[in-house]
């Protein structure tokens, strides 16, 4: 086995200086730009979370003024949802990997791809401006009439920031849809595509169909706030609940924008480190589409106590249960893939094992909330907070981090520290559970979300949660250190350090600007882990 050599020519060395990055049309460089910017927003959003958890270590509410606390949880939510989670997997990993996975030189619209990053940055600047100008306190959901009439904080710049960044999301989705339809290498038909690509296709459909609805909703709130129009204003006969309908019509499917690409990552990693073809390929592929479709018809489960009719509530409750079916299909198929697989415990796979536990708890507690009777008890309590963090942090971020660790050798061409990466995966899992599991109990006991004070008897669980947050924060900081360190000092990875199937592993690491010297022709079946292939791959 010869030692791999770091390729002299690759997309990182093709052009130097800031300009070659800021004007690049290479999907891989744009992915790196996204990686840097969403990481910045992730740690900014994390700072607000630190503030929240510090405040909640004591019941008295003695660290911040109530108004400041409101701004902290609002900005935590706005930044994490719109500027980290929604772009995370698609804009970084999807951007980088879809073209090589389908044997293409680039996405269909490279300039639009770059444009989408700039739009994201402009949206981010608006939101940063809102922070500097004094923050915003509506909650990330911008409920009317508070957001449209009452709040005296910076609703307009924040809402504009979200509106603008929405177009970045739409353009990314549009680019992916066209790319997957039109740019596949000859012979790469749909059922040979990696499930990562299927997941991104389903995600893109939601981005393209859902995001414009929240955009127009924000326009209406903006018109109300800026020009004194009255669309959701109850004093003029407007209906604030209509805002909630429109908002959740996007923002519920948006949960699937965050989780579906992560599910795609999981399929890739599970298969690779089990050395097995994914169990039930077509079921997993279609379950992504099913989640995307069902995701659009369940939104009112956020509004069971908002004054919708009991008949509507029953229908939406029933439909919400249906989302569990394709989600469970995935989990069962991954479990069956693991069964009798040749398992190993590299860092990406550790994230995946963690993901299974967290996604399972997050998904099943979602059913509690979809049930009308329990939701009336649990609505707007910490139970809800814990549930969606299990999905969006436990699910989406674990998938994202697993994916970053899995493809880092491909993106950078070098390996990170195996030891520290395993430590960080374990820290994230332990810290996460310590942070959010107590919140289920708190919510069940009746602690409402969005309050900076609470009765004394809740303190023990809150302190546990804050302590867990510290561990979690450490788990998130560690990768920054060893990944940055690996940029220069990491061992050279070679084309295929994991012995994975998949087209992206055939090209060099880091890839050439056009990914392949020759368009791949002998397209393998997806996840071809026959013993022969594995043996040969390991020789690479």
């Amino acid at each position: 086995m010869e030692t791999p050599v770091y390729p002299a020519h690759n997309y990182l060395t093709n052009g130097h200086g800031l300009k070659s990055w800021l004007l690049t049309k290479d999907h891989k460089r744009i992915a790196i730009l996204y990686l840097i910017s969403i990481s910045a927003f992730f740690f900014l959003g994390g700072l607000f979370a630190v503030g929240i958890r510090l405040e909640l270590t004591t019941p008295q509410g003695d660290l911040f003024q109530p108004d400041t606390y409101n701004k902290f949880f609002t900005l935590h939510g706005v930044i994490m949802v719109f500027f980290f989670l929604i772009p995370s997997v698609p804009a970084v990993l999807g951007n980088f990997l879809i073209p090589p996975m389908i044997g293409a030189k680039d996405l269909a619209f490279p300039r639009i791809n770059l444009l989408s990053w700039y739009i994201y940055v402009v949206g981010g600047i608006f939101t940063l401006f809102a922070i500097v100008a004094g923050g915003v306190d509506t909650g990330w959901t911008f409920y009317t009439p508070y957001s449209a009439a009452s709040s005296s904080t910076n609703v307009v710049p924040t809402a504009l920031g979200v509106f603008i960044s929405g177009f970045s999301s739409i353009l990314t989705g549009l680019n992916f849809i066209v790319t997957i339809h039109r740019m596949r290498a000859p012979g790469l038909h749909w059922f040979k595509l990696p499930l990562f690509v299927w997941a991104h296709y389903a995600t893109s459909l939601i981005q393209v169909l859902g995001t414009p609805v929240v955009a127009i909703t924000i326009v209406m709130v903006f018109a109300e706030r800026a020009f004194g129009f009255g669309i959701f204003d109850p004093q003029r006969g407007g209906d604030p609940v209509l805002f909630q309908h429109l908002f959740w019509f996007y923002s519920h499917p948006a949960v699937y924008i965050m989780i579906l690409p992560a599910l795609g990552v999981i399929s890739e990693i599970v298969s690779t480190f089990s050395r097995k073809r994914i169990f039930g390929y077509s079921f997993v592929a279609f379950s992504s589409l099913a989640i995307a479709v069902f995701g659009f018809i369940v939104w009112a489960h956020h509004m069971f106590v908002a004054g919708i009719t009991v008949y509507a509530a029953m229908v939406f409750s029933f439909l919400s249960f249906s989302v569990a079916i394709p989600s469970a299909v995935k989990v069962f198929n991954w479990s069956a893939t693991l069964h009798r697989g040749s398992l190993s415990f590299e860092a990406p796979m550790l994230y995946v094992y963690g993901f299974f536990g967290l996604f399972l708890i997050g998904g099943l507690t979602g059913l509690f909330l979809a049930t009308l009777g329990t939701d009336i008890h649990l609505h707007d309590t910490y139970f809800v907070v814990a549930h969606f963090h299990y999905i969006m942090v436990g699910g989406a971020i674990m998938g994202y981090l697993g994916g970053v660790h899995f493809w880092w050798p491909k993106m950078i061409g070098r390996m990170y520290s195996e030891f520290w990466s395993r430590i960080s995966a374990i820290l994230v899992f332990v810290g996460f559970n310590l942070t959010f599991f107590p919140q289920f109990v708190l919510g069940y006991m009746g602690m409402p979300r969005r309050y900076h004070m609470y009765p004394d008897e809740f303190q023990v669980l809150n302190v546990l949660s804050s302590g867990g947050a510290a561990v979690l924060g450490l788990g998130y900081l560690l990768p920054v250190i060893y990944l940055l360190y690996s940029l220069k000092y990491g061992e050279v990875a070679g084309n295929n350090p994991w012995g994975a199937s998949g087209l992206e592993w055939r090209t060099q690491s880091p890839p050439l600007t056009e990914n392949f010297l020759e368009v791949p022709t002998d397209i393998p079946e997806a996840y071809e882990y026959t013993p022969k292939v594995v043996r040969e791959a390991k020789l690479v």
Partner: protein
Amino acid sequence: MSNGYAHAEGAPSMHGHDHAHHPALQHHFSTMSQQREAGVLGMWVFLLTEVLFFGGLFITYTLYRMWYYEAFALASKSIEIVPGLINTVVLIGSSLTMALSVRSAQTNQRKATVNWLIATIILGSVFLGIKVYEYALKFEHHHVPGATFDFFGHAEASGEGHEAPAEGVTMGRDQIQRTTQIFFSLYFVMTGLHALHMIVGIVILFIIAWMAHKGRFDSEYHAPVEMTGLYWHFVDIVWIFLFPLLYLVERH
């Protein structure tokens, strides 16, 4: 497209066909038809996004129209119909000129392409001009929602008086005063966003006309003209829905 590596340049091309590339073929596509199909699909996906964008407004409109039908009927009657009618005709005409310019581009008639594009720009600008006139009327009549809104003010001042709510009208004057604001809020948001799309369209038309004038398009490469056409027709169709919804609620 130069990629800067000696070894890559000498390598066989990803799409090894020998004949010269069309100058408009971008490096990451293999053929002109792949490039064109990608563009057209992209445009349709974008229009799908636009449908959902306006869809949110139409849902909102539908709900309030069901709730406050009488106010919507009264408010709709207060809009001058003639400018709206002229605009509808102008816009349908502009769709025709747009379609003709696409046809000219496909058949490689450079001059005709440019002329039809300019005709489209002119008709689009006429539409916007009339729209400005209509907006000015709304300001004059205090029909712009907000602090100065007064649905009955203009009619009473000019002595016309909106038909005193006659048979079957159950809404009181106060309620009409309040809920007609919802109608006009939607009127401004819907027509405003439509006008914004028109302005964007006209800017694009200028660029495309300039490119056509420079001879960038031929019978093999005219996708930008086609796609501008798709966009322009979409904006027209939005108006075809807006006109009856806003102007013709109860004019029969």
